[in-house]
């Protein structure tokens, strides 16, 4: 918890700086409050785990325009509280970012979020932010990352350089929580580097659009966002300790648009003194059928194949997997959408997962979502075995104002 304290100090300092110097500027506020309820349909694998879980979250974006030219400051705090699992409580600064826009360059300084990549079902290249895996099971939510970012926008593409002075540890479900490893994970993490979370990471990315192609090349040097787990004996018995090694990662992402087709590829090579070096890739397509059956409905089809040369299903769930998805967009006034996905492990025929996510707007600005996830895994060697009993249905109501 002392790590959060330090992080909060930095961001609070930034925030107070912002609020004192920009008081004359009008502030824009855009907020979201969400309530979610989860119901797990099976008996848990561990007796202390819950069957139902409720949570409330809030996200408040304050925006100050600093005299036009695109210069601005954004401050976006976030909170979450869970009815069962105290590890899921969180106060975070999603963003506290100052942006200065030059003629063909931009500087960002503070806390923020950066997305890299093109694929839909797995984000290999994306590495700047830690995933807030307790916020959303699909991995799309991120913790705020302290950074200084310089971007050069030139004819030959966009070059972005990042200095990342502070590392955010991953969050893991507590004993009462579902969707977790069978052993408890210790609060205290271990690091390869003596500077621990204060190790300064660097990243570089070049991206460019050439006609129908969007391409990106990226490099990262620093603390791995993905923890490895060390079995540890504690006074309460066996536990796992998160270990964050130093890594170097080179990434490639490419996308080509051709009529109704979008072709996508992401590949990474990751090396480090204390990790098994590996190469992983994901590729596939997205195809959209517009105006299905003479209606306003669009049907998007996604197929992606993921590969990881560690070839060890114990460390990655995506070593040889095929994922098929459909996205039904009704194009109605309520913006109703239904996403369905099916994932099949090609090495372990019994390992599958299925998800359905539906959402629609009610009234002016309330969005109701119903998500369901189903997992099958028979093989204890496969990482998905951990969640084999964690099928769940989740209802989420989000108010925007």
């Amino acid at each position: 918890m002392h790590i959060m304290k330090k992080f909060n100090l930095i961001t609070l300092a930034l925030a107070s700086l912002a609020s004192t110097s920009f008081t004359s500027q009008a502030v824009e506020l855009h907020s979201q409050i969400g309530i979610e309820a989860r119901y797990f349909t099976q008996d848990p694998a561990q007796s202390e785990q819950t069957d139902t879980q409720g949570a409330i979250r809030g996200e408040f974006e304050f925006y100050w325009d600093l005299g036009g030219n695109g210069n601005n400051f954004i401050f976006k705090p976030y909170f979450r509280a869970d009815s069962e699992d105290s590890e899921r409580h969180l106060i975070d600064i999603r963003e506290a970012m100052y942006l200065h826009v030059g003629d063909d360059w931009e500087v960002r300084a503070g806390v923020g979020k950066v997305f890299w990549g093109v694929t839909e079902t797995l984000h290999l290249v994306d590495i700047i932010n830690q995933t807030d895996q307790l916020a959303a099971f699909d991995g799309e939510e991120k913790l705020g990352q302290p950074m200084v970012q310089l971007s050069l926008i030139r004819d030959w593409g966009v070059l972005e350089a990042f200095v990342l002075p502070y590392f955010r540890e991953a969050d893991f479900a507590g004993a009462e929580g579902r969707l977790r490893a069978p052993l408890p994970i210790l609060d205290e993490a271990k690091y390869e580097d003596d500077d621990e979370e204060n190790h300064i990471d660097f990243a570089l990315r070049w991206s460019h659009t050439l006609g129908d192609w969007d391409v990106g090349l990226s490099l990262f040097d620093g603390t791995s966002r993905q923890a490895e787990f060390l079995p540890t004996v504690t006074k309460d018995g066996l536990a796992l300790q998160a270990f964050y090694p130093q890594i170097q990662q080179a990434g490639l992402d490419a996308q080509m648009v051709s009529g109704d087709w979008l072709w996508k590829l992401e590949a990474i090579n990751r090396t480090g003194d204390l990790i098994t070096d590996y190469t992983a890739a994901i590729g596939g397509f997205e195809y959209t059928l517009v105006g299905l059956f003479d209606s306003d409905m669009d049907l998007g089809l996604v197929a992606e194949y993921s590969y990881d040369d560690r070839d060890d299903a114990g460390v990655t769930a995506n070593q040889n997997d095929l994922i098929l998805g459909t996205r039904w967009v009704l194009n109605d006034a309520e913006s109703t959408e239904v996403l369905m996905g099916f994932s099949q492990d090609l090495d372990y025929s019994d390992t599958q997962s299925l998800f359905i996510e539906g959402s629609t707007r009610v009234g002016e600005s309330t969005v109701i979502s119903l998500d369901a996830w189903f997992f099958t895994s028979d093989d204890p060697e496969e990482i998905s075995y951990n969640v084999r009993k964690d099928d769940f249905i989740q209802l989420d109501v989000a108010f925007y104002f």
Partner: protein
Amino acid sequence: MPLFKFKTKRISTYLTAGLLTAALAPFAQAQTPEEKGLEIAKTRKATDRGWNNSEQDMKMILRNAQGNESVREMRSRALEITNDGDKGLTIFDKPRDVKGTAFLSFSHTLEPDDQWLYLPALKRVKRISSRNKSGPFMGSEFAYEDMSSFEVEKYDYKFLRDEACPVQPELTCYVVESNPKDKFSGYSKTIVWIDHKEYRMFKAEYYDKKKDLLKTLESSEYKLYLDKYWRAHKLSMVNHQTGKSTVLLTDNIRFNTGLTDKDFDKNTLKRIR
């Protein structure tokens, strides 16, 4: 040089009506309805050249067959591109759940358009398959292709007749049939009403692929900007097949606000407000 633009000038001060008829008669006879339709389209485009860039606020009121309303608010920016389609950027303000979402498009006269969508919650710029032009824009009765800039090369034309303009019957309109060249258009044909004097579009009828009447658009509340450019402040689209309708209100139109190519860049999308 556009014959019809010429015709709208005060030729009558130099020529008697009889002389004019005699002078134009050979051209009128030599011109097929297709040629005349193309000429009208070219003049319509020519009268709207040179505005460089503009910004405007927009409000869409969506009504379903039961009369329930839903409102969208957005701001749009446009950059004129000579010899190709224009560049456009739309930023959504309402509904609040899509606030900050931005849509960038480079329309092209003959090739498919380039389109990107910025999703602020994910900080992700997503490329969109550009054939998606017949789909509804934000759940409204306007399709993406209805919102894109008018380009002469996108259609084949046929002049049908002259008649009193809809909305403003004191004016005379050319009634022209346009057939989209793009097979991914949602329409088999469009019939447009364009006034003789200022080449403003007052009405359009959209026919679906089965050649049935699908939608009718009426443009009204035209205002003149920079002494040259007419802009409609109200567009009403009615879908005859579903009973749904959308009114698009435009306000706060500004020209030459200093926008450049850099404001219509995929990278700029990430910091757009």
